């Protein structure tokens, strides 16, 4: 099963409501995925600053004085905003790599959920409504975002096994389905220098696309390559700093519905997820074709 929701705003007036709209969509997909939930929000870049979203099983201990400790390590100011088990660190853009390696030494138990100019990822085990409330997703603003409710098949129900997966700067991917050749593809990607946090099949798909983008391929082409190189069932929804993409495998068992108006492009695993969007009554609503890449970039 699993549920996916996604929203790419064309009308900037909706940006303050992105989190609220996505939260509503995410909760409608609870019975497709009650194990864990996650959300990636592209909330915009601040001049000269990047964001690293981190997670800890012991946030009181790990996040205490983390900003100061990182400041000492990289010699530049770092701010921290703690949200439950996650925290968003704002770091000067030139110091992102330095901050990540310092973090690995200073707090080895802390996991990096995402890093980039605009992206923030929050994900945890539990019901979507509880996960959304815990991170106050409904208060978040942004240009586009992707959410996922997981019913686990390929690997354990853990925070790190929740979607979205981020394997490159400002990139994320969510998945409905299961891949059958992920072990082979993972081995190949490791050989090419990609690193993995889990044994999860979806992380392999995320890393596969990140690797293509690193090689300089455009998003559309990277998504196209999943159709030839990944075997199994999938509907993927992918986010980049400026873009939002969708692709389904050629058999297309995993349901998907899209809607577009002058104000937004929306994705839902089921139409139920889209029913409260403004103007849905007159939106163009369609089922994305199998083996066809859709993407929008601003």
């Amino acid at each position, binding site marked *: 099963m699993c549920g996916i929701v996604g929203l790419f705003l064309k009308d900037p007036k909706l940006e303050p409501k992105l989190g609220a709209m996505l939260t509503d969509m995410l909760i409608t997909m609870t019975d497709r995925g009650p194990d864990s939930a996650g959300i990636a929000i592209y909330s915009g870049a601040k001049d000269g600053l990047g964001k690293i979203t981190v997670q800890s099983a012991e946030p009181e201990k790990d996040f205490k004085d983390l900003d100061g400790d990182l400041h000492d390590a990289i010699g530049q100011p770092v701010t921290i905003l703690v949200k439950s088990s996650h925290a968003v660190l704002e770091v000067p853009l030139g110091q992102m790599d330095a901050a990540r390696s310092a973090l690995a030494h200073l707090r080895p138990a802390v996991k990096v959920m995402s890093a980039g100019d605009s992206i923030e990822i929050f994900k945890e085990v539990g019901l979507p409504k509880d996960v959304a409330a815990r991170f106050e997703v409904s208060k978040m603003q942004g240009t586009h975002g992707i959410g996922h409710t997981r019913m686990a098949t390929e690997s354990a129900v853990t925070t790190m096994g929740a979607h979205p997966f981020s394997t490159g700067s400002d990139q994320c991917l969510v998945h409905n389905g299961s891949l059958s050749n992920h072990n082979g593809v993972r081995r190949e990607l490791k050989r090419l220098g990609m690193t993995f946090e889990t044994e999860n099949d979806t992380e392999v798909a995320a890393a596969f696309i990140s690797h293509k983008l690193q090689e300089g391929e455009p998003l559309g082409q990277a998504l196209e390559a999943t159709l030839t190189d990944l075997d199994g069932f999938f509907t993927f929804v992918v986010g980049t700093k400026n873009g939002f993409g969708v692709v389904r495998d050629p058999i*297309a068992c995993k*349901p998907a519905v899209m809607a577009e108006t002058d104000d937004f492009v929306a994705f839902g695993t089921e*139409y139920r*997820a889209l029913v409260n969007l403004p103007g849905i009554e007159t939106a163009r609503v369609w*089922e994305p074709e*199998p083996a066809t890449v859709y993407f929008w970039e601003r």
Partner: protein
Amino acid sequence: MQSFDLGKEGLRALNSALHALKGQTNMTAWEVVNPKGAHAIAAGVDAPVDITVRGSTGYYCAGMNKQATIRIKGSAGPGVAENMMSGTVIIDGDASQYAGATGCGGLLVIKGNASSRCGISMKGIDIVVHGNIGHMSAFMAQSGNLVVLGNAGEALGDSLYEARLFVRGSVKSLGADCIEKEMRPEHYAILEDLLRRGEAEGKAKPEEFRRYGSARKLYNFNIDNASAY
């Protein structure tokens, strides 16, 4: 007219009320408002009533329908009219995958497009699609008629038994053991009747269709192929 607000009263209450209608009833006209993509709307109805759903539906709307006429004033999610026994289901918009799957009887009309696996394993249902159908439609179809005014996707009629497939537009590819067959007078008569009952009379003429059916080569094991296994 019995009007039912699904948002307020809930699915269980709707389907219980519809299931309580047995045989002849005075409550023959029903309207369901605020469907909002909910699953299993009006599934398992067994009475000669007319139900109009004002909006789009989720999984399995009108599943197992017997006798009822069910109209969807929107699009339908996966498995609409799955295993229908009799009656009529008319969808104004599109239908998602496996519309009319395993249907044993009745008529399913889709005025928009149907996606993949339309009429998979159909066993006597008639399906009229005004638009296009997706890949693997009528897979293992056993009997009944599938009429498509638009185009068909890949692998139409794969491993087909005795269903008749009529397509007016292009067929991307035929599945295993599915071949084009001649149109005979009885086929024009079937089409004329189904186009009329499928509310497509003005849109297409019987002579514009081509017929596809089973080559019947998969019915029995061919001993000459033994070495292939």
